[in-house]
């Protein structure tokens, strides 16, 4: 079980919890504004972009090649960016806070 917080572009804080699927699916299930997941979670659309803290980024790990290439399409990408359809919901991410890149 993981309990995480999304901070939206409007600076709203949304706490959600789940134990399976991807972080994108969890965000969509909870209506987190700015996480669209238009492609359904196959790393093809870059509409589930989040920023992590440097510490959390180290724990979650760097994006794979396809994901890191897709992030180049987004002007808001930073070195701590991820597409959250590629992050599984697990105990590993419990307690983390993610900022929706919008």
């Amino acid at each position: 079980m993981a309990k995480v917080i999304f901070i939206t572009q409007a600076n709203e804080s949304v706490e959600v919890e789940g134990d399976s699927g991807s972080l994108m699916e969890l965000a969509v299930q909870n209506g987190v504004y700015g996480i669209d997941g238009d492609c359904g979670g196959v790393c093809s659309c870059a509409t589930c972009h989040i920023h992590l803290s440097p510490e959390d980024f180290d724990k979650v790990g760097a994006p794979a090649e396809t994901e890191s290439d897709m992030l180049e399409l987004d002007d808001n990408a930073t070195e701590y960016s991820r597409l959250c359809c590629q992050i599984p919901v697990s105990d590993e991410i419990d307690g983390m806070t993610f900022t929706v890149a919008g």
Partner: protein
Amino acid sequence: MQGTESGVETLSMNAVVIGASHAGVNFAFNLRQQGWQGTITVVDSDPELPYHRPPLSKKTLQTTECVPTPLKAEKAYADSNIQLRLGQTVDDIDRENKQIKLAAGDIIGFDKLVIATGCSPFIPPIPGLLSQSKYFAMRTYADVKAIQSALSQSSDKDVVIIGGGYIGLESAASFKSLGANVTVIEKQEKILSRVTSPVMSEFLSTLHINKGISLETTKDVVGVKQRGNKQVVVCGDGTEYLADFILVGVGVRLNTQLAINAGLIVEEGIKVNGVCQTSDPDIFAIGDCTKHFSTVYDRWIRLESVQNAVDQAKGAAQYLTKGVTPAPVVPWFWSDQYEYKLQIVGLSQGYDDLVVRNEDEGQFSVWYFQGERLLCVEAVNHTKSYVLGTQIIKKDLRVNKQLIADTSTPLSKELLV
């Protein structure tokens, strides 16, 4: 939530959307997020909570306890005050009285109407096909459930797919992963011949054949017969293929009848302007069923894609709340087959030159040009090509074609001229 900046007073207005797939649902949510204060009602004949369609032929079909991937959570509709009327068919659009009539008899009044009715699978009038029951299309969650049930009940798992397009090929890959014996029958000499180059067609043909798919091209299906428990698919040259069931993937019919009956201008798609307005200023149309003028390609186009559905939904919602006209958009598509990810940006139609960039084994891209102008990039397991192609087409930049083909030159801005 943002207010309406253009001063459009929407509090007492009713927005009604016909069609609750990618276009209709995204429109409804965007409209609310952009500050629409009136009611929003979305009607669809499909009884399921609106779901992603692309996974149907892939993940949904491949998963035994298959469940659709919802576009939005059920509670999100309530939170955004969007009323869903699912399992309801719309019979008529009454423009004069500004209302739609449901088959069940209800009448819903609108100030702004959005038609997002999409397409339905085209089932060709092949003798014997319609009269027997073991054929399916791949468009709805109900289709996938029925297919899975038919597959689980068949001991031989012999599947014949009529049509070697994207739906047929993605389904073939999924059926294979479920242990089926799959035959794909294609009318043309090459699969996907109308939508891609011989290079890409050849790659995908070889891929599917190597994965064990029987690919039968230049075959015209002329009839379907019953023989024992089996369906027999008969081709014009006399060859026959046995199937426990048939999947038909030969294209679509546009769901434009409501628009036609309402007297809107429809020419192979509901004609819309740059803000998705139809020939009636209070009626908008978005998604697969529409035809719009692409300023990027300088012609009228109709697109069947999630990207177009979502972008048109956002554009129409912005216009209705803020009076803003959306910026031109470059189309993009994707397909996943086996371990291969195909990403396409732009439209290749009208190309007169192509350049192939071969990266490592199983990674390559095809760059389509008209003169020096890049029209489209199709990338297989090579997102870098897709991303650079997107940036080039968006900005209409020029590239050095020789360097594109030369893999010792990295894909970067250095390729630009």
